[in-house]
């Protein structure tokens, strides 16, 4: 097939065969995946040649791979030719023009979560200029970051503006061939964020995709790369407690973190994509590869996640503890209700000496949901003095849900100290009655007990995120009891 970007038009026009209506302002590729599609994506983004080559290599390898089946997940086979791999953001004209045009149910949820009014419009996808001008706020942030020398921009911009950094670090933590979904992402990634914190800089604010100037929908194949240079420090917030409008069912994101000597990265996620209806229809499939590389001595990477959304979650944020005395942390709350399924956990790979890792995983299952914790602690022969502490607790609400724990340990160094604790508990009728006898409704009692169960993780979240996360949990478990 031709590699000439001028063939783009014929590709774009292919949609007519499928009966699509052309709209000059929408800019999507028809469903299907082949090398021409990848060339078209790359061309749309005006990417340099190295980026296209990188994508194509990933695609060619992906073709040789098999979709993994080892996870404790059941879902219909995905037809990768049915998916459209490039959709430009909707134009304002196609968006709701005001909150009055937005689904009242969505607004009700925002209300329960206590989302401020001006944020609701943005979250619901209301045309921005019809609501308020966010540019001035964003500009202030951008200036502050510029003064500190921090680079924080859309991934596609970084490819153009900072190709040397992209070449050096992209795929250096999650290689193109890492796994099926990472390879697919490498071939077709839509956009994402790039962060570079220079030597010795403490990022002056918490970075959030929320404040990025180009905050348009980054799509289903998001790519994030964060590099913390020597002695730097950054806290990054991903996602949002509010349910996001999204029409794509399959999501396969890749996040790579690189922490050099004495650097620290704290990465917090709140994931609340559509979980499907009570029968599990229509929910998002979320296959994510997140990995951090503690490349330098005494570096630290900390993952904190609150996962309440998606029909299917396949996600294992991991740390490679390469540098001596480096530290990896994983704090997770995962909630599954109704028909949701989650197979999630972490990997801690101890390579350097005196490396330390901590795992705290809290899983809550309700309805007919199934949840698995899958964790690997690997200590290589040279990692003398490695320490790991893992605590995995499951809380069951009701009789039809399931919790499963799959801890793997591969310890090749005799000096390593490894501790694993696991508990499974239920919200007992006695606990509920006790709270109700004190005048607290059953629903509030469940929320209280669940939040108590998750406390060790919530206290790791940045303050306002923690408050939102608690509200989110309550909404996610609505109707789980009684």
């Amino acid at each position: 097939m031709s590699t000439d970007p001028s063939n783009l038009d014929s590709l774009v026009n292919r949609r007519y065969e499928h009966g699509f209506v052309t709209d000059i302002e929408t800019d999507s590729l028809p469903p299907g995946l082949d090398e021409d599609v990848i060339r078209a994506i790359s061309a749309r983004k005006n990417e340099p040649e190295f980026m296209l080559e990188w994508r194509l290599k990933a695609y060619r390898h992906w073709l040789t791979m098999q979709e993994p089946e080892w996870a404790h997940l059941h879902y219909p086979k995905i037809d990768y030719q049915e998916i459209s791999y490039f959709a430009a953001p909707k134009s304002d004209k196609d968006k709701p023009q005001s909150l009055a045009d937005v689904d009242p149910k969505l607004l009700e949820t925002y209300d329960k979560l206590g989302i401020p009014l001006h944020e609701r419009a943005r979250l619901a996808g209301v045309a921005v200029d019809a609501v308020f001008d966010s540019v001035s706020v964003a500009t202030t942030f951008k200036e502050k970051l510029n003064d500190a020398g921090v680079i924080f921009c859309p991934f596609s911009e970084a490819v153009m503006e900072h190709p040397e950094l992209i070449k050096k670090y992209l795929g250096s933590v999650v290689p193109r061939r890492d796994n099926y979904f990472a390879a697919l992402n490498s071939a077709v990634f839509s956009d994402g964020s790039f962060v570079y914190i220079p030597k010795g800089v403490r990022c002056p604010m918490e970075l959030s995709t929320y404040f990025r100037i180009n905050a348009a929908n980054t799509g289903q194949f998001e790519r994030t790369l964060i590099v913390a240079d020597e002695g730097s420090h950054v806290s990054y917030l991903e996602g949002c407690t509010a349910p996001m409008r999204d029409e794509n069912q399959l999501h396969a994101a890749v996040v790579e973190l690189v922490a050099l000597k004495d650097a620290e990265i704290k990465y917090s996620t709140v994931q609340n994509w559509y979980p499907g209806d009570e029968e599990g229809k229509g929910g998002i499939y979320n296959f994510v590869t997140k990995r951090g590389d503690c490349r330098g001595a005494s570096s630290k990477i900390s993952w904190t996640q609150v996962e309440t959304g998606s029909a299917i979650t396949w996600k294992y944020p991991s740390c490679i503890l390469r540098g001596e005395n480096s530290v990896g942390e994983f704090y997770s709350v995962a909630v599954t209700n109704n028909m949701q399924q989650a197979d999630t956990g972490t990997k801690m790979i101890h390579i350097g000496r005196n490396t330390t890792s901590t795992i705290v995983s809290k899983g809550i299952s309700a309805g007919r949901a199934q949840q698995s914790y899958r964790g690997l602690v690997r200590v290589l022969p040279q990692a003398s003095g490695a320490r790991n502490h893992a605590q995995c607790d499951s809380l069951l609400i009701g009789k039809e849900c399931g919790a499963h724990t799959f801890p793997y340990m591969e310890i090749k160094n005799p000096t390593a100290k490894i501790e694993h604790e696991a508990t499974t508990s239920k919200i007992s009728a006695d606990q509920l009655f006790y709270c109700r006898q004190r005048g607290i409704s059953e629903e509030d009692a469940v929320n209280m007990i669940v939040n108590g169960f998750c406390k060790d993780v919530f206290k790791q979240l940045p303050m306002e995120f923690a408050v939102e996360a608690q509200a989110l949990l309550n909404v996610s478990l609505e109707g789980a009891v009684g």
Partner: protein
Amino acid sequence: MSNMLEINNLHAGIGETQILNGLDLTVNSGEIHAIMGPNGSGKSTLAQVIAGHADYRVSAGTVSYKGEDLLEYEPEERARRGIFLGFQYPVEIPGVNNAYLLKAALNAKRRHNGLAEIDAFEFLQLARKKMSDLGMDPVFLNRGVNEGFSGGEKKRNEILQMAMLEPELAILDETDSGLDIDALKAVAAGVNALRDPARAIVLVTHYQRLLDYVEPDFVHVLSDGKIARSGDKSLALELEEKGYEWIREAAAG
């Protein structure tokens, strides 16, 4: 003195087992009643039925509280209307801050009564004051609800909750059991402090011991699911002397 609680011909049980067999009891505001009786006589069942535990089924009879049919209400609705049960075995709720539960309970009741919610500052002041009255270390406020508490600490915590919630009808289910003498005195002081013309207190107890410190107006002896004998505090002393067999024989004869 007005009629607070009126129980007529109450039949109730758990599963297929019938425990209460036609119990009658009237409690007026301002009164302290002690309900005594041997194990299995139905003391705790009575407490649980009044509080509304779902496992207990009422098959006949009526329970009215301040003139309303109490059995119509959910447990939390009863609580907000002023009924407090001090549990025999207070449950542990790991991770849930004791202060958090207490504040939520207090505010649920205040909302029901159309009062503004208490703010964190007022709440802390109030809680610290009540704790110092009870001789409790304020550090308990920040621990998980009953999490890792000793038996005595759990019972004191129940009394603290009662003191904070200021119920109109308090039922204390064997709050004295398993307490050493200091804890018993502290619990008794907490109960006595709540003695009020507008409040009724029902002490469910196996032993006379608590009644040395909290003087009841009436003592009832339960046997086989109904009240076999009622009297004043001298009945408790008589029981202590003669044992429960005496009541059973008297009831049979």
